[in-house]
Structures are given as C-alpha cells and as structure tokens.
C-alpha cells in the first residue's frame, strides 16, 4: 500500500526534532545540510511549515532534472534521487513549488520515507507529521494542507 507523509502546519511547534531525526537516520550525524525535511519559520506569528516532498502527482522535479536522476522506486511507490546520476545542479530544487527538495553537499536530497518508517514522524510528538496510507480521505485532507502550505510559502518567499 502506498504511504504518504502529511504535514499539519497548525500543529508544528518548530522544535525541528524532525530535521535532526532525518539527517541522523540518513548519515549518522545531525545537520541541516543532510536533512530531507526543513522547517520554514515565521517567528512573530509562531507559524512553522515542515517542508518536504509532498509526493505530488505532477512531479515537476522529475521533469526538470536534466540527467534523469529522479527515478520511480516501485517498491516504495515514490520518486527517489539516484545519487549515482545526480549532478547537484539544483534544477529540481527550483522546480518544486513546495520547496520540498534540497541541495545537499553532493546530491539533491529528497524524502525517501526512510524505506517506509520515516524517522521524522517517529520523533514528531505534536502530530504535525504523520505517515498515512493513501486513500480518498487522506488525499482530500492532504490537498487542503498543501494549499495552506503554498500560501504560507508565498507569504514567506523573501525570508527563505
């Protein structure tokens, strides 16, 4: 069954445990530079948006990649970055409207759901990050949240 990570901005308290959990599970150390999830912060209003791959249906990241390094993983049923092919040009980062893909030290970094058990959601106590199985209901509730996030990203575009 296909899984998806859902982010609820209203619940996020900005603690960034998810960021450290992600980088820790992907490299054995904690660092922003190695994380596939980041927090867009709007401090005066205490609003925070977890930025990560939304597994959208359009996949502009894949379309933008000049070397076809973003490939479909049939086992996880999601797009992942092939580090052997990626040349870290950053075109996918530009293309993603959710700011959900990042440029790491050597390759682009994109959520891979940690193979089905995401570390970020495991350490998110507020309920802002949840892994759900794709169903008509989760897709519908995911759409509302994606819209809210796009507005928030637009409002904070200059800060990022």
């Amino acid at each position, binding site marked *: 069954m296909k899984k998806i990570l859902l982010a609820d901005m209203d619940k996020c308290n900005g*603690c960034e445990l998810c960021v450290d959990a992600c980088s820790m599970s992907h490299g054995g150390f*904690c660092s922003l530079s190695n994380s596939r999830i980041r927090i867009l912060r709007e401090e005066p209003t205490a609003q925070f948006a977890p930025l990560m791959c939304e597994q959208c249906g359009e996949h502009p990241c894949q379309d933008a990649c000049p070397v076809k390094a973003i490939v479909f993983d049939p086992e996880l049923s999601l797009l992942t970055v092939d580090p052997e092919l990626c040349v870290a040009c950053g075109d996918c980062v530009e293309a993603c409207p959710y700011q959900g893909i990042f440029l790491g030290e050597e390759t682009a970094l994109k959520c891979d759901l940690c193979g089905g058990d995401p570390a970020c959601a495991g350490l998110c106590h507020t309920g802002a990050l949840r892994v759900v199985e794709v169903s008509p209901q989760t897709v519908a509730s995911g759409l509302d949240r994606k819209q809210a996030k796009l507005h928030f990203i637009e409002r904070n575009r200059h800060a990022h």
Partner: protein
Amino acid sequence: MPIDLGFKIARIDLSNCQVRVERLEADTFDLLIGGRGLAAKLLFEGQPAGADPLGPDNQLIFATGKLVGTPVPTAGQTTITSKSPATGLYFKSNTGGAWAKALRRAGWDAVVFTGVSERPVYVTIDDDQVEIHDAGELWGKTVRETEAWLHRELRGQGWDNATIGQAGENLVNFACVMTNLFHAAGRGGLGAVMGSKKLKAVSVRGTGKTPVADPTALRREIEAVLAKIDGTVKAKLYVDYGTSATVEYVNESWSMPVNNFQKSHIEDGHLISGSYLDEKRYMRKGSACSACPLGCHKYSEVRQGVFRGKSGGPEYETLAALGASLGINDVEAVLRGNELCNDYGMDTISAGGAVGWLLECVERGALPPGAAGDLDLSWGNGETMVELLHWIAHRQGIGDLLAEGTRIAAERTGGDSYQWAVQANGLEQSRVDTRVAKAYSLAFAVNPRGPDHLHAQPMAEFGHFPEARELVKRILGREEECTGTTLKGKPELVRWHEDMFALTDSLGICSFATTSSYIVSLESLALMVSAALGVEMSGEELLERGRRCVVLERCFNLREKPNRKDELPWRLMNEPISEGPLAGHVNSAQELGGLLRQYYRLQGYDLETGRPTRELLGRLELAEGVKGLDDWAQTLP
C-alpha cells in the same frame, strides 16, 4: 565508539579585541560533563577571588552541553555563568530558544567573554569565524529592535541572537540576557554583566554536523520518552498551557504569595491563570526551543485597550510576580508588564519583588506616599506596575533605587524596610511560598545563587501526581512523605534534585524533562547518553558528576565570601503564614537549621559551617581536576 568529547572554547577579550581558541581534553567531560559543569570550572579557574562583577576580570561564560544538536528531547539549553552583580556570588542562568544548537553546530562548546570594551560592540560567530563589530547604532535599543536590526544587518536566515535591552545597558541588577527574542536567562543580572562589557549581542550561525554514536538506539529511546508525554500529568500541562497552568492550583491551595508574601490567596485568581488566558484567547501557540516536544513557551497577545501588544510568555513566575504578589488580577496589565520586561531585558521575578517592596514600604510608612511622584502606590494597581517597569529599566526617579534590587534598596532606605525585601543573599525569592514547602525551603537556602527554584525544583515533595510519588518512593524507599509540610526525608529529596538538575544543565537538556515533569528518568538519560555520545556511564555515575558541579559551585561562593549563610528571606523565617488552611507555617531558624544539618551530613560537609571538607574534594576528584581548588582548600577544615 565515543564521539569527540573534548571541548572547544572561544575566549574573547573585549578590552583589546582579542580572540583565542582553547581546547580541553575529554577528561573534563569525565569530571564535569560540560555545559554548567564546564562553566563552573572555567569560572573558578579563570578569575581571581573578589573580582568586580561589572569589571574586566569577571568572565561571562556561554556554554552548552554535548547532547545539544542531537534529537534528545529538550536538548536546546544555553547556560550563562558569571559572578552576579546582584549577589556578588556564583551565578548560572539558563535560556532556551535555538541559540545553543547554533553554537554547537558552529563547533563550539563555550564562549568566554572577559574585559570591557570601550565602545558598544556585538560579536558574530559564523562557524569558526569570530568577529567583533561596532554596535554604536544598536545601543539604546530594545531587545525587539535589536533583533530586527541584526536580522537586517546580517541578512539571510540561520542567525540566532543573544541580546540585552536597555536594562542591561543601564546595569539594572536584575537585567537578563535574552535569546531568540523571548527566551530569558532571567535571574541574577547577567544582562548587566553583558552591559558592563558594552556587549550588546552575540549572534551565532552554525552549519556543521553533530555526530551521533548509535542512531538506531538513540531513536528507539527517544521514541520511548515521547510516548510517555501524554500520560504524564505535568508534561501534558506544559504542552497545553506552559508553566501558567500552575497559577490556579497554587492560589486555590492558599500558597500564592500575595501582596509581597503578606497573604496567601488572591480574589478571582483564575483571572490570571493559564486556563483563563487560553479560554479568552490571550494565549497562543508559541515557538518551541530546539528539540523540545513539550513546547511550554507560549505567546500571548492583548488585542485592544491601553495594554495592547504581544509577547512571549507569560510564565507562572511572571503571573505571580507582576500579578498576585502585587495584588493585581488584571491579566492585561500583567501581559503588558511581561512584554516590557522581555523588551527591556529584565527579570520579572526581581522586578515584581522590587515593586512589591516599594508598595509595602509606602503602606508601612518607611517611604512617603509621594515616593514615585503622582503614581498611586497602593496594592492592585496595574498601571502603576507598568509605569514603574519603565522607570526601573531607565533608572528614572525611584526606579534608580529599585534597579539595585531589594537588598541594596532596603540598606539605603533603612528602618524595618529589610523585612519587606523578600530576598536572601541578594536574590529576590521565586514566587513560591517555602513556608509550606519544606523541600523547597531547603533547596532555596542551599542554592548558590539564592532562593529560587532553578538549582533544584523538588516538585515531587507534594506527591501531586503518580510520577512524583514513584520518585519519592525510589529516593526514600517509602512514599508517605508526599506532602509539602512534612520535614522527614526532605534533605534526601533535595540532594537528588540538585544533582539531577546540575547533570541536566551540564548535558544541555531542560530540567522540565528530568526534574519537573519527570518524563526522562535517570536510566533513560543514561541510555540516551550512551547512544548519542558513546559513553557508558550508569545513572548513578552520571548523577555523581552533577554532584561534583554542586560542590564546586559552593567552593566558588566560599572563596568569594567565607561567611555566606544558607538562609531564606527574613519574612519567611520570621512571619508565619497569616491566613487560610496553612496558616501558622513558617521557615523558622530552628527548622531550617535542622534540615541544613541533615543535608550537610549527606553531602559530607562540615556540620557547623556547611563547608565542603578537603577529604570530600579529594574523594570527588575535584581537587585534582580543578586548578587552584586544592590551594584554596587548604583553608578548609
């Protein structure tokens, strides 16, 4: 494999603008863990006895623990350590936000400021680049304005700032250092130390990596801790309301310090409670400190009227200090006062204590009704409180006297006014009535900084919730002592909480996780230290390192002031509670003396003087590990 447990320290001399990098080996970790413990060692070794707190010899040390930067829950604390201008003694004050994590990511364990700059400066730490900049434009600005200026000047994301407001510049004896706008290293006037050095801000950006020894094991243990939060009474209250959750409980149990500790209950106290703030939508979600799943730090807003504005907080202590203890139950006035204290960088507990002392002096005739011009100096006037906060921060009118803190203000005023200065050793007491909380009374008396709750918060003594009763049973082997007013077993409880608090501060995590809500047990802590740092130490071994810090801090104080006494404010030792179901309780000299002797025995201190012995310092390996300690210890019994 353990990660690198050495320490990298930046020493910044502001008198001659020199920056020096110093490295300490891992044996310091083994002795004192880091953070608060490391800073206590640096303070003892790095300055002569008798240094002027506001002079060039005093060090201002920002330190953080080795767990900071990992996802260990609540590992986001900065410890600021110095000699306090309010007490003239050792002082550490903690603050949250994201500053500590930035420092650690930048590769530093501590930054030590010495000297005094000729002109205002701010310091940037950009990974390993340390630079000193002119802050002429910043001087005179509030904390909020300073943050905004730095945001523009430094351009780009990722900077975290520690700043002072006008209170620090004007050397108010209870000025704070503020991190990330609303997080205060509140007590003891460390903001004035920063102001005396003409240091307006320290801005940090860190892009490095924090290693973790065993990610899989660490994730497993963190998930176990997180799973406990919702089922733990106190932790859940922090999540929902922050510390303001306690106001109503304290008031309804008739132990709220009202009118400068004259009374124990305020009418309509729910009007300043967390649930009221939530219900009336004054309180909002806040910004959690790094790695904190509790997120106790809320934001608040008054939408209209004379007290309009928004800020971080309010905390329990602020609602009590600027509210109940001044007879004020107008929450909008308290929120305005809270905002002013945040923006001027001023401790709400001591500010409220100073205003309360003034009101009582006028009530009892030690000062004239016109002491503050036209202001109405009667209890319960929110506008007066707000106005006086402006005066204190700018040292205007009687604010100049209040800015000294209540000990000095009373010395200058004379008469009986010392009785209404609810302070001991120069620090205004937290808004906790220790007359009905005997473990707290002992903890406050032996606290090296003075009577407050931030060296040991023995919440367990009340036995309010299952985690508390379990802990009491574990420490004492029985749980019948779970009331505030019993004396039995309290020294043991205090000792455990002191050690745990020091360990917690030394690792860089928050005491709300380990000693207030008790969601992180000692065993769990040992597991996380092992997984994160690759260090195998039992819970008891870790706790012993906390105890070394407690003893070392006491030595610093005795070196400064050999006749320093473990005591409580005059009022609490001499005036019994006057009303309510707990009337008659007091912290008499006899009662406190008895508790102290039992505590000294447990600690291995001299029973008469409360001084550590040379034998103890040897046994704890402090004599060897801290330079100059053994020489000084020649004077001990």
